[in-house]
C-alpha cells in the first residue's frame, strides 16, 4: 500500500488532534487539589452524601500517601499546576443537535458522529469532565442495557453504583486511584443485564481541551451473568506547552459466564501524563479481554489487570505500545489467578523510535489454591533507533504447585534481511520498515474492529515516517 501518498493527502504531518477550542466554560476550578475543590465538584454534581464521603476519604488518603517512586519519571508532574475540574456545558445532549456548537465542531473534526452513523453503535463522548453527547440504540434500552455518563449513572442508578463503586479499584489501591476517587468526573456507566449479548461495540471518546487540565474519568462496567459486551474508547488531547494529566479509573465486573472486551487506543498529545488504573474482576467461566494501544502521551503508566476470581475464569491482555521521541510508554498487564483452572494470556508488542522508551511491566500471580492455573506471556520489543530504549520487567509470583507459567521476551531491531528482501522488491526503505512494523503488530491489530485497525495502522505509518535513513 502506497501509504506515503495517503499520509500526504491526509495532511497528518503534525499531531492530528492538536487543534484546540477557545475555552468557554461554565465552571473551571482553580489549580491544585484540596478539600474545597472536592466539595465543589460534589456540590456541582448534586451528589449523594455517601459519594462526597468517599471522595473526601480518598483525598485524605492521597494526601497522606507518598508520591509514587517507581515506574516512569513523574518529576515533571505538578499538582499545584493542574485544573482538577472543568465543566464545559450545562447539560448532557440527548441528540446531536442539542450539543453546543463548539463542542460539536470538535467532535466532527474527530470524526465521532461520522463513526456513529457508520456503525450505528452507541457513542458516549466525554468532553473535559462531562459527558455531553450520548445515544444508545433503542432495542438495547429495551433489553435493559444502560450506557450513559458516569454522573448520570450515579443519579439514575444510585443503588447499582453504590453497590459496586470502588469495589474493583478501592481508593487505597494506588496513589492515582486515590486522586481519581477524590476528583472523578465523567466516564461511562455500562450495565449489561443477565444473558444480554451485544453484538455491536459500545464506543466512548475522551478528549482534553484545556491547558494544564486533569481528566479523571471513572468508568464502571457491570456485565451480569452470561452477558456479553465490547467497549471501545479512544483518547486525544491538543498539544500545549503545559503538561496535562489524565488519570482514569476503569472498574469492570464480569460475572459468571459473562464476557467483556475493553479496547483503548490512546493517542494523547505528547505532553499528557497518562496514569490509568484498569481492572476487571472475572467470575466463574467468565472471560475478560483487554486490548490496549498506547501511542500518544509523554508518559503512560497503565497496566490493565484481570483478577480471575471464579473457577475457569480467563483473562487476556493484548497490548501495543509505540514510543516516539521523548515518550515513555510504561505499560503492561497484571493477572491474578485466585481460583482453580483459570487461564490467561498476555501478548505485548512495543516499538521504540528516536529517544522513545517502552517498558513492559507485568505481574503474574498464582495464589495458593489456584491450582491448574495456566498462563503464557510473550513480550516482543522492536528498536528502531540507536537512542531508543526498551525494558521488560515481568514479575512472576507462583504460590501453587499445579501451575504452568511461561514468560518469553525478545528484543531486536528490524532485520536487515527483511528490509533487503522488501527493498529488492522495489519498496523504499521507509516503506519496507513500515511494512515490517505493521507485520510486527499484526497480532494485536487484527483484534481491533476494522476502523480502529485502520486508524492504528495509519498512526503507525505516520509515526514511522522518515524513521529510516
Amino acid at each position, binding site marked *: 500500500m502506497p501509504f506515503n501518498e495517503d499520509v500526504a493527502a491526509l495532511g497528518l504531518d503534525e499531531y492530528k488532534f492538536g487543534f484546540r477550542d477557545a475555552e468557554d466554560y461554565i465552571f473551571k476550578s482553580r489549580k491544585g487539589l484540596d478539600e474545597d475543590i472536592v466539595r465543589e465538584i460534589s456540590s456541582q454534581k448534586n451528589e449523594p452524601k455517601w459519594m462526597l464521603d468517599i471522595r473526601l476519604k480518598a483525598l485524605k488518603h492521597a494526601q497522606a500517601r507518598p508520591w509514587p517512586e517507581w515506574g516512569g519519571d513523574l518529576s515533571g508532574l505538578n499538582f499545584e499546576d493542574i485544573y482538577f475540574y472543568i465543566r464545559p456545558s450545562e447539560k448532557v445532549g440527548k441528540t446531536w443537535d442539542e450539543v453546543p456548537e463548539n463542542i460539536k465542531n470538535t467532535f466532527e473534526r474527530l470524526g465521532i458522529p461520522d463513526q456513529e452513523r457508520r456503525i450505528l453503535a452507541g457513542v458516549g463522548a466525554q468532553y473535559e469532565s462531562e459527558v455531553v453527547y450520548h445515544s444508545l440504540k433503542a432495542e438495547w434500552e429495551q433489553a435493559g442495557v444502560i450506557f450513559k455518563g458516569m454522573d448520570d449513572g450515579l443519579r439514575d442508578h444510585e443503588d447499582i453504583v453504590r453497590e459496586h463503586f470502588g469495589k474493583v479499584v478501592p481508593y487505597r489501591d494506588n496513589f492515582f486511584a486515590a486522586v481519581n476517587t477524590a476528583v472523578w468526573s465523567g466516564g461511562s456507566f455500562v450495565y449489561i443485564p443477565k444473558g444480554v449479548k451485544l453484538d455491536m461495540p459500545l464506543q466512548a471518546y475522551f478528549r482534553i481541551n484545556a491547558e494544564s487540565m486533569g481528566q479523571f474519568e471513572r468508568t464502571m462496567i457491570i456485565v451480569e451473568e452470561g452477558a456479553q459486551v465490547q467497549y471501545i474508547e479512544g483518547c486525544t488531547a491538543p498539544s500545549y506547552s503545559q503538561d496535562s494529566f489524565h488519570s482514569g479509573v476503569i472498574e469492570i465486573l464480569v460475572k459468571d459466564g459473562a464476557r467483556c472486551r475493553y479496547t483503548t487506543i490512546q493517542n494523547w498529545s505528547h505532553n499528557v501524563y497518562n496514569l490509568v488504573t484498569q481492572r476487571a474482576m472475572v467470575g466463574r467461566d467468565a472471560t475478560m479481554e483487554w486490548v490496549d494501544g498506547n501511542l500518544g502521551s509523554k508518559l503512560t503508566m497503565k497496566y490493565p489487570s484481570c483478577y480471575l476470581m471464579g473457577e475457569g475464569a480467563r483473562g487476556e491482555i493484548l497490548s501495543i505500545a509505540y514510543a516516539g521521541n521523548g515518550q515513555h510508554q510504561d505499560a503492561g498487564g497484571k493477572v491474578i489467578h485466585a481460583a482453580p483452572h483459570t487461564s490467561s494470556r498476555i501478548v505485548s508488542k512495543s516499538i521504540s523510535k528516536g529517544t522513545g522508551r517502552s517498558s513492559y511491566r507485568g505481574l503474574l500471580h498464582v495464589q495458593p489454591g489456584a491450582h491448574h492455573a495456566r498462563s503464557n506471556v510473550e513480550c516482543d520489543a522492536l528498536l528502531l533507533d*540507536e537512542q531508543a530504549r526498551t525494558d521488560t520487567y515481568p514479575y*512472576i509470583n507462583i504460590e501453587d504447585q499445579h501451575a504452568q507459567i511461561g514468560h518469553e521476551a525478545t*528484543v531486536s531491531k528490524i532485520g536487515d534481511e527483511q528490509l533487503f528482501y522488501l527493498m529488492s522488491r522495489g519498496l523504499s526503505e521507509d516503506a519496507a520498515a513500515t511494512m515490517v512494523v505493521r507485520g510486527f503488530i499484526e497480532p494485536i491489530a487484527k483484534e481491533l474492529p476494522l476502523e480502529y485497525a485502520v486508524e492504528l495502522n495509519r498512526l503507525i505509518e505516520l509515526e514511522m515516517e522518515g524513521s529510516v535513513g
Partner: protein
Amino acid sequence: MPDTITPADVGAFTRDQVEILAARKGEAEWLRASRMAAHGVFADTPMPTTRLEDWRYTDIKKLVRLDEFSFAEERGPASVGAGLPAGLATLMAEAGEFEARLVQIDASVVIRELPESLAAQGVIFTSLEIAAQEHPELVQKHLGTAITTDDGKFAAMNAALWTGGTFLYVPRGVQVEAPFRVYRWITEGGTAAFGRTLVVAEQGSKFSVVETLGSDDLAKPALSVGAAEIFADEGAVAIYTSVQRYGRGVAHLSTDRLVAGRDAKITTLYTSFGADLARADVQCRMQAPGSHIDMLGLYIADGTQHFDNQTLQDHLAPHASSNLLFKGALSDKGRSVFRGLIRVHPKAQRTDAYQTNRNLLLSDGARADSLPNLEIQADDVRCSHAATVGQLDEEEVFYLLSRGIPKAEAVRLVVFGFFAEVLEQLPLEGVKQELLRVVERKLATRR
C-alpha cells in the same frame, strides 16, 4: 525515605572493631582506610526493607538480626587428616580432583596447599590477608574495584570486616587443568564470618576455582557475609563455582562481581543447597569487545529454605555476549526468588544476551518468584529472556512409570534430568559428578 538507623542495624560490628581488626593484622594504611570507608557505608545504610525493589521478596530485617552475632573466632593452622571438623573433612573427601587447596575455618585460613610447580610459574594462591602483606601492589590494584560503595549494606559490611580470604593470581598464559579448591567452614552458631575472594586471571590464562561453603546444622543462627571479585584479562578463560552446602541455621549473603576483558570468557555456577536463607547478588560485566560470560545457577529448597538470586548481565562493550541459565526446584515451604537483569548500555551494539530461569514446584506450600528483566539501550542487539514456573512434566513421569519405575523414583529421575541441563554446561567433569551426587542426595532426603 531512609529509615532511621537503630543500634541493632549496626549490631556489634562497630567502627572500633574495624580499627582493632586492622591494627591486629598490621595492615597497611590503604587497607585500613578502605575498611574504615566501607564501615561508614555499612553504618550509614539502613537494613534493606521489602520496600526496596531488590529486596521485595526477601524480608532481611525479619530473617537476619545483626545484633545476634559476634565475630567468628580465629583459628590456628591445621592440616588435612588431623583435627578438622568431621563435616568439613567429609566435604573435602567428597571433592573430585584438585590442583591446590585453601581452607578457611571461621575467621582464619588454616590450610594452604599449592604445588611447587605452580608457584614456580608465578601462581599465587594464598589467604587474602597474607597476599595484602606480600603482594600489596596486586591486591591494592584490584581489591574493592569491582565491588564498590554502591553495592549495598552487605557488600560494605564485608569490605569492612573480611578476615582470612582467598587470593588467586594466575600469571599471563598459565593454564591449570584441575580446579583450585577453597573451603569455608563455620563451626558455631551465634557467629558471623566474612569470607572474601579475589581472583586475577592475567592475559591468556586458563583455570577454575571451586569454593565450597559448609557447616553442620546449627541450633543457633550463624551469618555468612561473602564477597568475590573475579577479573579476567584479555583472552583469559576462568571458571568460578560456588557450592553452598551450609547446614540449617545459617544465613548466607554474598556479593560477587565478575569482570571480563577483551575476548575473555568466564563461566560461573552458583548453587544453593543448604542454609536457611541464601542470597546471591551476582553481577557480570562484559567490559570489552569479544567478552563472554556464561552464568549458571542451580537451587533446591525444601523445608522453609529461602533462596534469592539476583543477577545482572551488564553489557558495556559491543560485540560481547552472555548467557544465563538458572534452574531451581522447590518443595515443602521452600521459596525462591530470581531477579535477573540484562542491561545493554548505549554503546554495546551487537550484543547477544540470553537469560532463562526455570522453576519446578514440587509441593503446594512452595513458592517461586521470578523477575527476568531487560533494559536495552542499543538497537542492534539480540536479547531475550524466558521464565517458567510449573510442575514436573507429567508425560515424562508417566513414561517412566510405564516402564515399571516406582513413582518416587520416576519423579526423582525427572528432577534430576531437569538439573542435568545446567550441570552439562559446566566444563569440569569431576565437579559435575560431585554436584550430581549432591543433587541426588538432596532430592532423596527431601522432606
